[in-house]
């Protein structure tokens, strides 16, 4: 068949009932991984066996904060950095709900860092998906708390000189029950991690490395979104249950260094219930 198999615009994707399909195509750039994470989340909602009416999606500010606006479950686009306290209120008030926070590294770890460590310490029943693109993408590519040393941003044209957060290590140290790190290429694995998080009682944290071709990729000469994903494919090394989380920093500059991904922590720890 040589003619393009172009379905009518009205023909929908099987998950369109879980998306606000009238808003698609979304505003995110071509090659951005946030769409894949939203897609993975709605797939997990669909496979969780829980009524979508009992799912809640909360997001903060930034490109990743747009997630709440595109999913057709009860969703809240909260203020900058306050996605976690907002979600915490929902989860504690109504333990029947499956509350998922989808937000970016800048929102969850910079301005919301304090909320993150205390939500993890209390082990509130939350499912946190942190989309890590190593910079503040929406505001123009400034250096954030996850920008690797040496990586360039608008506020660090010679390369960042700060030590970044190692998010799985931080989450484990704060007491999270489940910690995983995947990239958008490991779409089956991160969807499984999100599904397990929905089942688990406690604070669950999944970091998803995502390309940002418009800001981070361009300034660091990583090429298009596909080139960055291809870099992940070549460098990622899966190590489930890794014990040495403190050594799992991400080095973007040295392409010889492996990036370790996997399901790192899955422990039973009493969760916070009011």
């Amino acid at each position: 068949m040589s003619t393009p198999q172009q379905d009518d615009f009205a023909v929908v994707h099987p998950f369109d009932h879980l998306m606000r399909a009238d808003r698609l195509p979304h505003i995110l750039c071509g090659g951005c991984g946030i769409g894949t994470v939203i897609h993975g989340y709605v797939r997990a909602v669909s496979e969780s066996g829980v009524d979508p009416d009992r799912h809640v999606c909360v997001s903060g500010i930034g490109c990743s904060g747009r997630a709440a606006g595109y999913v057709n479950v009860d969703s809240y686009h909260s203020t900058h950095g306050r996605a976690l306290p907002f979600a915490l209120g929902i989860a504690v008030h109504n333990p029947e709900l499956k509350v998922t926070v989808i937000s970016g590294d800048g929102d969850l770890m910079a301005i919301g860092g304090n909320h993150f460590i205390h939500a993890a310490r209390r082990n509130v029943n939350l499912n946190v998906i942190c989309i890590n693109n190593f910079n503040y993408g929406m505001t123009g590519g400034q250096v954030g708390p996850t920008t690797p040393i040496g990586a360039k941003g608008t506020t660090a044209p010679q390369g960042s000189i700060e030590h970044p957060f190692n998010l799985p290590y931080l989450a484990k140290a704060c007491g999270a029950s489940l910690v995983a790190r995947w990239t958008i290429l490991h779409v089956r694995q991160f969807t499984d991690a999100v599904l397990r998080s929905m089942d688990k009682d406690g604070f669950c944290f999944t970091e998803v490395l995502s390309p940002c071709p418009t800001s981070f990729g361009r300034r660091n000469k990583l090429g298009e979104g596909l080139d960055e994903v291809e870099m992940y494919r070549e460098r990622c090394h899966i190590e489930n249950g890794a014990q040495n989380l403190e050594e799992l920093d991400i080095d973007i500059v040295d392409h010889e260094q492996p990036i370790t991904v996997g399901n790192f922590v899955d422990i039973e720890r009493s969760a916070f219930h009011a």
Partner: protein
Amino acid sequence: MNSADSVARKPMDLAQADVPRGEVHIVAERCKECSYCIVYCPEDVLVYTEETNAKGYHYPMIAEGKAEACVLCKFCDLICPELAIHTTDASDEAQGS
């Protein structure tokens, strides 16, 4: 995807194996030409169109002679950031039921 560079051994029952068959559906107007579906298709089913959609992006289409080649791995669907592509089961059993 990590260590799939080479196939070391061929299964003995390869001839009897029932290879799933899928049909690809594309929503052209959602595509933003990220090319993930085209590059990561294990059977190279997809190629770019010459024409563009309303936003000016070349969207994927089935390559010449590949109409029956999809093996329903669903990876194009899973990785698509735009929910612009999905596959359905086109095997004889699925059609017959």
